[in-house]
């Protein structure tokens, strides 16, 4: 076999390798790694640029110059910047984000505690938003210009314009204080708090693992109000986007084809049109989910919800840089992850995007 021929075959093999399912996964992993590297680079720079001296934060204002210098060397801050960056990356990859000054735990332990609280809230809110928002948007689109459409639009607009802290307080006032339908702030009633072993950190799951139904229903009763309020906002957004995507699809030619075939209006809307609506909608839902996962500070404050938003905000107000940067990395990683997920879903839903 001549060298040219061999080279040609290698090229073809490589092409096949890069286009197969393995290739897709590898490319996905590669772009994930690149993005994550960029994220670390940015957080590292922020940490070095901010006018907060980490040495001073550790030793206090009254330490002597020699102590200051010793700690500075211990922290590796005397090394060249590129070396510091490598140390930083290897630390982060080992899950070592440093110590939080505020809580005196490792940042990793803190995040393990607060992130599940946010994850639980965001996930339930997004599920409610999707389950109610998509049908509401479809319903509005197929009744365009009639009262169901106006109703969905008014509800959506209200969801957009009402400040969340007001809605949260009103929710507590009505459903907790006056009607006593739901439990108050926090994730569980306070006398239950130490009963539960944080296996996953998700209260609803942990209580089920323990098999304690009383605790489970207590957790449900606590999460239902903040989740509904967050869900309202994501519902308003999802319904509005669904409506406009749906209107666009319903005017397409293939919808007329489906009508010519004599199939039911129900099937035309929910199978033909919605199948196409889901393609752009998946990105919308993913972004709204990612936004919620960042932690909604106001909701978490009002409902005393020990989540990521509250943690990062508190750390920021106390110049607790390790915690802030750790939190930022988690938020960034979540965004990358959710974006990847929506990419994968996009490919599954739209055959034109598969290669």
């Amino acid at each position, binding site marked *: 076999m001549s060298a040219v021929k061999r080279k040609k075959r290698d090229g073809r093999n490589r092409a096949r390798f890069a286009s197969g399912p393995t290739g897709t996964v590898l490319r996905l992993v590669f772009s994930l790694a690149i993005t994550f590297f960029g994220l670390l680079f940015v957080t590292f720079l922020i940490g070095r640029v901010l006018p907060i001296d980490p040495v001073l934060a550790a030793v206090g204002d009254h330490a002597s110059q020699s102590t200051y210098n010793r700690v500075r060397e211990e922290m590796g801050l005397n090394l060249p910047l590129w070396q510091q960056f490598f140390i930083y990356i290897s630390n982060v990859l080992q899950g070592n984000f440093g110590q939080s000054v505020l809580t005196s735990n490792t940042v990793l332990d803190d995040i393990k505690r607060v992130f599940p609280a946010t994850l639980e809230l965001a996930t339930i809110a997004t599920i409610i938003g999707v389950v109610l928002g998509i049908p509401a948007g479809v319903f509005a689109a197929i009744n365009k210009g009639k009262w169901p459409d106006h109703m969905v639009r008014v509800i959506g607009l209200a969801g957009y314009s009402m400040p969340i802290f007001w809605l949260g307080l009103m929710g507590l006032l009505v459903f907790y204080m006056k009607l006593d339908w739901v439990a108050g702030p926090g994730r569980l009633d306070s006398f239950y708090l130490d009963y539960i072993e944080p296996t996953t950190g998700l209260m609803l799951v942990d209580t089920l693992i323990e098999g304690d139904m009383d605790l489970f229903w207590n957790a449900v009763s606590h999460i239902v109000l903040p989740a509904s309020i967050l869900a309202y906002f994501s519902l308003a957004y999802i319904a509005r986007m669904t409506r406009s995507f749906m209107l666009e699809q319903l005017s*397409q*030619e*293939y919808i*007329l*084809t*489906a*009508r*010519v*075939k*004599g*199939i*039911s*209006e129900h099937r035309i809307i929910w*199978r*033909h049109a919605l*199948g*196409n609506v889901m*393609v752009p909608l998946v990105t919308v839902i993913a972004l709204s989910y990612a936004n919620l996962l960042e932690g909604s500070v106001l909701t978490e404050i009002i409902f005393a919800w020990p989540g990521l938003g509250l943690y990062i905000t508190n750390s920021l107000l106390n110049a607790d840089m390790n915690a802030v940067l750790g939190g930022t990395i988690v938020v960034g990683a979540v965004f990358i992850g959710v974006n990847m997920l929506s990419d994968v879903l996009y490919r599954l*839903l*739209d*055959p*034109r995007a598969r290669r």
Partner: protein
Amino acid sequence: MSNETLLSVKNLEVTFNTPKGDVHAVRGVSFDLGRERLGIVGESGSGKSQTGRAILGLTAANGKITADQMTFHDVDLANLTPKQWRKVRGARISMIMQDPKYSLNPVMTIGDQIIEAYREHHKVNAKEARHRAIDMLDAVKIRDPERVFNSYPHEVSGGMGQRVMIAMMLIPDPELIIADEPTSALDVTVQLQVMAILDDLVRDRGMALIFISHDLQLVSSFCDRVLVMYQGHVVEEIKASALHEAKHPYTKGLLNCLPKMDGDHSDLPILEREASWAEG
């Protein structure tokens, strides 16, 4: 060819309510159709496509259809409930759309879309339906029906897509096919192939055909009779074989606009329109 009347349309009017006032797309079209192939020719905006859509009750929501009579066999097409329409559409009257790039659902496989058309009107199991669909793809001369069955619309060419369209619309075995510019989106070389396939199937199955096109030549070679439309009116009805005897100046003008192959290189005449044609 029997002379029984399948479709009878008398004084059909289609009016669209737009912010700028009413637009009369079709004004008083009448014709009877037996088991024959009828061509409707006209320029864009002449109302030929809207005539076809009105027969299927698929005029856009802001349009209004009125007719003294619009019957298909004994079915009064002017007064059907949505449920009754669904028994007519696909099963008895079907329509081939213009451009397969837009008229096929991009996220459903071709097979699923054909099966859906068939199972809507025939109660068969999935296996039988699949078998039928593949036979039908074979009937429209697709060489590799199994592969096309599992493909998505973007994975096949325009000519192939239009064959899929024909297969999908013919599979429930309707009595009348309306073909709305079925080859206009295709390459010239593919146009005749697709027309030939459609023509064969329509003949074999004894279906009636309404062939809507702006191409007078194409229509006259595939149809028995031609309606010439202008501004919503039928200005002339003529046998396809007698096209050269056309009396209406518009039809004559259209025929004169066709380039000749016999070496006459003089400039083509420009069609001079007269306002009186639009009054019908």
